[in-house]
């Protein structure tokens, strides 16, 4: 069996997710109730029997650090299994990570200690469930130096992704970074193959190419922009196609880099049969468990044509107490209080939020610890909303952590 080490890149600033990333790194942003974004990637590793996992951080890492401590110190280091965080250490030189490739380069020492056969380079800010073992299998079978996970997508989205061109055998022949006019899949003029930012490298090839890249003066030291395009000339680079085995359609994968994408991926969970099913015993998504009372919804009542004391199409986490309120198509993280005759629709409430009585909240993301006083409306008047928080391009109101009003 090949020895595999996973390195999860968690060092991006996540500026497009502001203000959710004001106090935390993007992978540490809460998701789907009780989870953090990074739990998906780490769970994929564990479920795929990859149990040597390093997480590379650099900005605002306290929140992520705490989460990894609480949720992921379950592996036994004595048997060579671990989920460890490595903060930027300035070990190789005195810079912060200049790009995704530089982050790995600056951690050569760690690679050296582990000496894996293969290195999986993963991103800490994607929502997806994927069995990496299949990708590893293909990597070995094709005798590849690098395997890139890809998925089919409509060509209209090309300007948001790296586009991969492949030959009949699946070898990667070309690379376009966020093109307006993408090269489409042969025989499928409306589809493109996108780079999911999930890579398997042979360790020696990775090391060589990262060194070459480190010595290039005008490089941005990024895998997608620099290292991989230049590898197409020198190495065996293959695409792995990420399909849902039941439907043989493209699998579910979301880069939750913007408020819109984050909101949509959360809302996807509320569908009746979501592709991102969290109730899959074969592929559990793990997170930290804190003690609290169970969720409770009470005080059913019908008043002025509205039902109260009910929850519809929603996720409700432990420790929530919903008293005579109306919750519809929303996600409630742990320990939320919602007061009487308040109506919450199409919203995401993060941990420890308190909503008073007679509040109306629609299409909002309310960050941890926010206290909303009685009678407040959010999501109805953009002018008033702008005073309370940030409004995204499509009008989603985001209330920053610990705001009190």
């Amino acid at each position, binding site marked *: 069996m090949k020895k595999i080490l996973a390195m999860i890149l968690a060092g991006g600033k996540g500026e497009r997710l502001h203000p959710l990333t004001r106090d935390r790194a993007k992978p540490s942003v809460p998701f789907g109730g009780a989870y953090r974004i990074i739990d998906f990637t780490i769970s994929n590793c564990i479920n795929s029997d990859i149990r040597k996992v390093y997480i590379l951080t650099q900005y605002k890492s306290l929140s992520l650090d705490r989460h990894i401590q609480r949720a992921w110190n379950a592996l036994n280091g004595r048997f060579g299994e671990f989920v460890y965080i490595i903060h930027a250490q300035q*070990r*190789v*030189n*005195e*810079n912060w990570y200049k790009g995704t490739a530089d982050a790995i380069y600056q951690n*050569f020492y760690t*690679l*050296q200690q582990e000496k894996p056969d293969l290195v999986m380079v993963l991103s800490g800010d994607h929502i997806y469930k994927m069995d990496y073992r299949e990708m590893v299998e293909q990597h070995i079978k094709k005798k590849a130096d690098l395997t890139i996970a890809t998925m089919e997508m409509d060509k209209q989205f090309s300007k948001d992704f790296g586009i991969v061109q492949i030959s009949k055998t699946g070898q990667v022949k070309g690379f376009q970074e966020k093109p307006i006019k993408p090269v489409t899949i042969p025989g499928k003029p409306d589809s493109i193959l996108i780079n999911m930012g999930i890579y398997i490298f042979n360790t020696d090839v990775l*090391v*060589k190419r990262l*060194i070459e890249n*480190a*010595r*290039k*003066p005008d490089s941005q030291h990024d895998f997608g922009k620099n290292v991989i395009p230049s590898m197409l000339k020198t190495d065996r680079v293959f695409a792995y196609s990420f399909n849902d085995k039941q439907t043989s359609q493209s699998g579910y994968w979301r880069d939750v880099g913007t408020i819109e994408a984050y909101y949509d991926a959360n809302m996807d969970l509320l569908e009746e049969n979501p592709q991102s099913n969290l109730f899959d015993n074969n592929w559990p998504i793990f997170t930290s468990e804190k003690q609290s009372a169970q969720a409770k919804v009470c005080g059913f009542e019908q008043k002025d044509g509205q039902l109260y004391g009910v929850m519809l199409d929603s996720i409700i986490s432990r420790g929530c107490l919903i008293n005579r309120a109306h919750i519809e198509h929303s996600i409630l993280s742990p320990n939320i209080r919602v007061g009487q005759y308040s109506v919450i629709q199409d919203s995401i409430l993060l941990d420890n939020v308190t909503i008073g009585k007679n509040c109306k909240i629609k299409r909002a993301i309310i960050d941890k610890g926010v206290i909303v006083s009685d009678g407040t409306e959010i999501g109805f008047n953009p002018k008033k909303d702008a005073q309370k928080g940030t409004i995204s391009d499509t009008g989603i109101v985001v209330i920053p952590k610990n705001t009190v009003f």
Partner: protein
Amino acid sequence: MSVKILVVDDEENLRFLYERELLDEGYEIILARDGRECLDMVEQHAPDLIILDIRMPRMDGLEAIGKIIEINKHIPIIINSAYSTYKDDFMSWAADAYVVKSYDLDSLKSTIRDVLEKKHLKK
């Protein structure tokens, strides 16, 4: 203009030997005793090539490599160590060549010529 070579080694006798032999080859030679002095010399004197020992006090050669590249990405580096074991160290792969030390300097001299030639070709 002659080629300026920076020789980094903590053993005084060896520095002296390399200096004498390489001067005979027509190179200009500057010297450093460890990784830290090496970095100062790279910054101040912009050598054309570095001959780098690995086991040195204060800062060893492997640590120095990453920092040298940060100062000058193009500078060729030849590792010159008494041990071949450092070939397994990933940082040593960043050097252009790896020579195992010997008192006969022929192998080092021919490596210098090769590396300089390659550098010229790249230009």
